[in-house]
């Protein structure tokens, strides 16, 4: 069953899911995890930046070019039809992942950033001066800057709801920002810098009451728990393939069908037209209207393979595994003297952002790197959020399905080593 990303789904996994998750045998599916880094066992904890790829996804890319490569939507020849079928099957896989009503509600894009820019440059063009877009203080730059550019073009106003000290959206402030001029609420499903799982269904209900649409940045969500766009009742849902074990350069945007029908084209070119003449052109129906030019066909097909992979394990099982690992990592990190978490929301997924007294996150990142532990250090493309907490950045460990207790051991040992080295 495809339940939405909920408190129940993440924090109280079913016993069967917990049992399956505890075994966590999936690291062997990822060839890169077997390579040493800096002569150490690799503990890859930078999954918020990008995830590693299972053999099946790598093979799907190779298979496509070895067995199926042709251009799509235009061939009378067999291979073209075959490639088209694979590409459209991948669209159905994405629709299945998000529980979208129809595969024609899914537009292939390069990633979350392009998806958000697409919405800003198509739907957003209808905004009038004084219209408002509401985001939150915890957004990634890719869910801030496209709206700033749109506001500069249209005279619309970008507002931002506050985040509490624990890293949750301040719902009172959010409600006070919502008003009759709010046309769109755009927010992360899961914060890339804090790990907070936002109450999207609740936010959507509030936005609906105010007459606003809702865009959800699902970049940090789709790989970590079941997502259901119908249960969330959102209008747009964006994600990147490379953060769900797929290739880089491919992602998807779900658009509610009634909105997609009316959306003006974006980039012009081949594949997005119905007819072209110098008197005027007409546009293709459905998602193709937004997929001008030859798309990343192999990438889409391999994304389909990645979705098959996570669904073969089961997103509830993955959620249970990561949730248990996050709980352990949180407990063990907090047991270290001088370690402070940034982002302590009641409902979190897979991300541990932290500071160590007396050690800059960048130094910590270098020392952990020499232990084979890959983390991210910096502002995580969320500079307004760092400013809100009064810090230049954090160290961030982010989990994926292949992480195990050994990775947490390496993280904790690396932090202790850094503390010893720095004498703190």
């Amino acid at each position, binding site marked *: 069953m495809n339940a939405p990303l909920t408190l129940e789904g993440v924090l109280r996994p079913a016993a069967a899911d917990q049992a399956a998750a505890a075994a966590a045998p999936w690291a062997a599916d990822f060839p890169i995890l077997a390579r040493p880094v*800096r002569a150490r066992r690799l503990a890859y904890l930078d999954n918020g930046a990008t995830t590693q790829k299972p053999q099946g996804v790598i093979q799907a890319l190779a298979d496509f070019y070895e067995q199926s490569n042709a251009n799509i939507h235009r061939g009378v020849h067999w291979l073209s039809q075959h490639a088209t079928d694979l590409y459209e099957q991948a669209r159905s896989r994405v629709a299945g992942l998000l529980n979208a009503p129809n595969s024609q509600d899914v537009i292939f894009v390069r990633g979350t950033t392009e998806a958000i820019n697409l919405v800003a440059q198509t739907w957003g063009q209808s905004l009038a001066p004084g219209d408002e877009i509401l985001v939150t203080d915890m957004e990634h730059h890719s869910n801030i800057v496209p709206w700033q550019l749109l506001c500069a073009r249209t005279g619309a106003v970008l507002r931002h709801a506050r985040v509490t000290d624990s890293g949750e959206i301040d719902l009172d402030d959010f409600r006070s920002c919502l008003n009759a001029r709010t046309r769109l609420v755009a927010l992360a499903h899961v914060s890339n810098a804090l790990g907070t799982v936002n109450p999207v269904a609740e936010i959507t209900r509030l936005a609906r009451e105010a007459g606003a649409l809702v865009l959800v940045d699902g970049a940090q969500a789709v790989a970590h728990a079941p997502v259901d766009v119908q249960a969330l009742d959102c209008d747009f849902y964006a994600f990147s393939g490379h953060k769900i074990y797929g290739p880089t350069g491919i992602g998807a945007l779900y658009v509610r069908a009634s909105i997609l029908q009316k959306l003006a084209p974006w980039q012009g070119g081949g594949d997005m037209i119905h007819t072209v003449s110098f008197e005027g052109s007409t546009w293709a129906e459905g998602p193709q209207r937004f997929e001008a030019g030859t798309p990343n066909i192999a990438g889409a097909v391999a994304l389909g393979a990645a979705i098959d992979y996570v669904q073969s394990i089961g997103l509830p099982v993955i959620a249970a595994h990561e949730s248990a690992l996050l709980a352990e990592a949180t407990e063990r990190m907090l047991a270290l003297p001088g370690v402070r978490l940034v982002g302590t929301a009641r409902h979190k997924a897979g991300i541990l952002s932290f500071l160590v007294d007396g050690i800059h996150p*960048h130094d910590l990142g*270098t020392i952990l790197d020499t232990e084979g532990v890959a983390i991210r250090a910096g502002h995580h493309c969320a500079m307004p959020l760092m400013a809100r907490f009064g810090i230049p950045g954090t160290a961030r460990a982010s989990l994926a399905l292949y992480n195990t207790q050994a990775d947490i051991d390496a993280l904790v040992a690396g932090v202790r080593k850094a503390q010893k*080295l720095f004498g703190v």
Partner: protein
Amino acid sequence: MRDTDDGLRDLYQEVIFDHNRNPRNFHAMPDASHQADGHNPLCGDQLTVYARVADGIVQEASFVGHGCAISTASASLMTEAVRGQPIEEVERLFRNIHQMLTEAHPDCDLGKLEVLSGVREFPARVKCATLAWHTLHNAITQARDVAVTE
């Protein structure tokens, strides 16, 4: 093969820790003749470098800001190294430091600044070590440009 721990010890030498914990000349300079801001957007390091130049000689240099141990120590060491030096010598030092961090060791002894040479093994950290130097270079050359156009 050299162990990465050796590289780590070369990077974080005691002098680096000392200057990180107790940065020298760590203050604003109200009577500075030259100043510039430096920012490393990748890691959020931010600093302002000040210099008081008279008769073509850096009488005094200082800095404020926040950053990692490498950028803080590099800035601190720099303010000591350039004090009393002619501007031409400061520019020569800047080029030599840059070369030491990015290519091969230059054909000269860089004295106390040699402690930064371990950074070369960590390409992701080179910008941390050069930030203060780029900022000082900008401070000095920008002011010169202004002087030329006048």
